């Protein structure tokens, strides 16, 4: 450990500022509170602060940042925008450092987010021990008043002396370059230990007991506290915005007024806000304030612990201070739950996750050209696309891509072709601005593609089986990829039965596929329409999709059933095929959610703790049947 006199410490900071070590950002007063802000002089630094309004995450994941820049007057002109400014953060408290370590896991462990990575690598962090405790914090109970990794330097202000522990080489270099510290004495080291111990035991707000957050939450999904508190909730999102461990974001395209240049930006988003789960078709998956209010606690106390092994709360108390109705305090809620645990235990199983450590450009779309455009009906069009790189898109049936038109936006679209060809096919339904804009494109025009993403159908596991495919409406699009895969590899599959229902005859999709399937040996096809309005003609089955199930001849004990359709369909279809004796593990579904990033970062696609973009969209029913938010 090293030490500097207070005077020398201030000189150290001032030299970093003057000699351009990078942008020096420290804790300064803001009215009666504190914030991280660029320092002009060491004298402005307030290591005696209690807490900053926003956590230092704003320096690593800015409230708004530009991801891409594009010029739409060109066929395909897009550049990644990465900020490479060197920064030195001075005065980060241990709990905020713990939170940054968590953020590192989320943004760097799997599917490395390059924007974050570059900023993180360019940032030097000087942690400072806590001198004053904010009144709503409870770090003592979580052990987050101290931190042992992540920082470059860790300083303790002892009054006349500042003791410095070095965490990394980056820290050593900085210290050697801008100061000449002496070694800390044993008594100074002792003082540091004492200070930390005193801090730890000075928190008046504590966990009532030594309970485990995840265990408590598992038992209390239906607890009345969620509803009671949510009634007072403003759905204002403050509790998530000010939280150092909340890292969800939204993405938006913006054009300059000249309509030539524009950028894709990402901004902070929060799961308490109403439109957080809104998808293109207008469906919202966490509609009530109660569900949103509850989700935040579960994400912090159960879902992230199951995934990463840490409780995603560091006890800083910012949420409690800044929630006007004062219902956002995790300590109060957890203490209340622990004291009144409900009878009924309800496990929320999260499927195993493989951390893949993928490192490639995740946010930059590559260009693809529309080769063919085939209108299926008034709303839906099938596009055949080819990557301009000349490379084949490597995907599995059931995966999805993110399709972009610069200046309008991006949306997840499932791939509806069977892999193998040089091209791939997407069925796009005109629903919002993006899909309307795509519909205006012609063969030869270009779109941006990211992906493929997600977990497709496990073809290895499906091979050798009888297959029953049940598709509703435009669910046939992703289903077609696996149907045609099994027919392309016909000898690997046994009997194939296809049930397809849609609203009315005019909305029927993929006529040429249906004709082909109809005629194929060993393939049984049954179709139906919900109804046949005047002016359309239909001489087949009329009725909802479930009316086709009794017609299908299949062995319930020995058939894999794949279901894809609108959200409302699953419950009924699953009920009926289970009644026939199909075991849960033979049922496979593909689910739709809002997927902004596709890579497990933005937080929008979560079903309880499951990321649809990573673990889905294809799921085995047995893995998700217990998840209240799934079906």
């Amino acid at each position, binding site marked *: 450990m090293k030490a500097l006199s207070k005077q020398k410490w201030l000189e150290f900071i001032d030299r970093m500022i003057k000699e351009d070590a990078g942008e020096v950002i420290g804790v300064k007063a803001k009215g009666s509170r504190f914030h991280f802000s660029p320092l002009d002089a060491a004298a402005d630094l307030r290591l005696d602060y209690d807490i900053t309004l926003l956590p230092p995450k704003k320096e690593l994941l800015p409230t708004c940042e530009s991801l891409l820049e594009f010029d739409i007057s060109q066929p395909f002109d897009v550049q990644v925008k990465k900020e490479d400014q060197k920064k030195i953060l001075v005065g980060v408290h241990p709990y905020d450092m713990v939170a940054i370590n968590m953020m590192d896991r989320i943004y760097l462990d799997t599917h490395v987010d390059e924007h974050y990575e570059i900023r993180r690598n360019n940032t030097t962090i000087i942690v400072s021990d806590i001198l004053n405790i904010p009144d709503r914090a409870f770090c003592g109970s979580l052990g987050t008043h101290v931190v042992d990794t992540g920082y470059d330097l860790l300083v303790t202000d002892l009054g006349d002396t500042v003791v410095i522990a070095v965490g990394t080489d980056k820290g050593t270099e900085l210290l050697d370059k801008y100061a000449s510290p002496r070694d800390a004495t044993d008594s100074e080291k002792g003082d540091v230990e004492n200070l930390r111990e005193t801090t730890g035991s000075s928190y008046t707000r504590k966990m009532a007991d030594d309970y485990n957050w995840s265990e408590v939450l598992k038992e209390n999904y239906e607890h009345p506290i969620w509803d009671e508190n949510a009634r007072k909730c403003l759905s*204002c999102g403050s509790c998530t915005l000010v939280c150092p461990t909340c890292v969800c974001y939204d993405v938006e395209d913006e054009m300059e007024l000249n309509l030539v240049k524009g950028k894709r930006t990402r901004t902070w988003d929060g799961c308490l806000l*109403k439109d957080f789960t809104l998808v293109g078709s207008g469906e919202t998956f966490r509609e009530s304030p109660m569900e949103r209010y509850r989700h935040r606690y579960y994400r912090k106390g159960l879902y992230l612990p199951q995934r990463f092994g840490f409780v995603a709360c560091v006890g800083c108390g910012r949420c409690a201070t800044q929630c006007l109705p004062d219902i956002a305090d995790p300590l109060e809620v957890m203490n209340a739950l622990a004291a009144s645990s409900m009878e009924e235990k309800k496990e929320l199983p999260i499927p195993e996750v493989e951390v893949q450590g993928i490192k490639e450009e995740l946010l930059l779309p590559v260009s693809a050209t529309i080769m063919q455009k085939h209108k299926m009906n008034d709303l839906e069009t099938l596009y055949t696309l080819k990557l301009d790189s000349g490379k084949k898109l490597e995907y599995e049936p059931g995966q999805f891509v993110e399709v972009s038109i610069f200046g309008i936006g991006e949306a997840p679209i499932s791939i509806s072709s069977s892999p193998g060809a040089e091209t791939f096919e997407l069925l796009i339904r005109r629903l919002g601005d993006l899909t309307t*804009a795509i519909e205006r494109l012609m063969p030869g025009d270009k779109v941006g593609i990211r992906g493929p993403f997600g977990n497709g159908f496990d073809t290895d596991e499906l091979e050798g089986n009888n297959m029953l495919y049940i598709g509703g409406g435009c669910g046939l699009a992703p289903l077609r990829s696996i149907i045609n895969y099994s027919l392309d590899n016909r000898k690997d599959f046994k009997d194939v039965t296809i049930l397809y229902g849609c609203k009315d005859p005019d909305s029927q999709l993929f006529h040429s596929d249906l004709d082909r399937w109809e005629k194929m040996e060993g393939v049984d096809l049954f179709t139906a329409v919900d109804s046949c309005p005047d002016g359309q003609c239909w001489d087949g089955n009329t009725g909802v999709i479930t009316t086709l199930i009794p017609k299908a001849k299949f062995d319930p004990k020995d058939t894999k059933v794949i279901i894809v359709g609108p959200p409302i369909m699953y419950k009924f279809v699953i009920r009926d095929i289970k009644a026939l004796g199909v075991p849960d593990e033979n049922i496979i579904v593909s689910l739709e959610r809002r997927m902004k990033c596709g890579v497990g970062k933005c937080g929008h696609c979560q079903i309880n703790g499951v990321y649809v973009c990573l673990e889905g969209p294809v799921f085995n029913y047995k893995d998700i049947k217990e998840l209240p938010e799934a079906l």
Partner: protein
Amino acid sequence: MKPRVAFFDFASCEGCQLNVINLEEKILDLISIVDVVTFREAMTERTDEYDIAFIEGSINRPMDEEKLKKIRANAKVLVALGACAHTGGVNKLRNQWPVENVKKEVYGDADIEGNPLFDAFQTKAVDECVKVDFYIPGCPIDRNEFARMVTQIAMGRTPKLPTYPVCVECKKNENICVFEYGEFCLGPITRAGCDAICPTNGEGCDGCRGYLDDPKMNAAKDVMLKYGITLDMMMKKLNMYNYKKEGY
């Protein structure tokens, strides 16, 4: 062809149109993507041929309502510009009293009987008279939002307003919540988009951008009561830009 744009003003202070002119260097970009055909604040030429009509101001007289209906019939897209057009704005405050009393108060004994210029009815927002396609809220409007909305309309996007409250922008600006120092604020129930300009400058939000679609009125009232705001003070603020709006 570039869309033709017309600006019309009714009962307003014309502050919103002024904000459009104040786009400064951006105004050149604006006229490179649209043709401005009628704009009283900045030009004298006028025409009845336009695609997008921006309406500023609230509607107070039968003759105004007639004119507005004609504009609606001419325009492909009609946009309400600013609080007066969007909610009726501060003009609606006079709806607290009967029209006759208001006239008496303002014009005294002057002879206005039968003069259509003074034939006022209770103040209406634009959408109480004709269908409005899009709103650009605020008193005055935020010129960046105006620019954003125009680009979105010009690109065939449906311009969308934030569906979250002012608090979101307030937090992102790292403000101290004004409730902390004894002010009070309609931020939690008001639609964001102004970058929380009032709380950022230490003033509580007056709700000039109108309420959210589903404002959490009861929760917001509880908060105000908790901070010692009387019902009377609350109503004054709630009425300022959102007189008799749904929700309370």
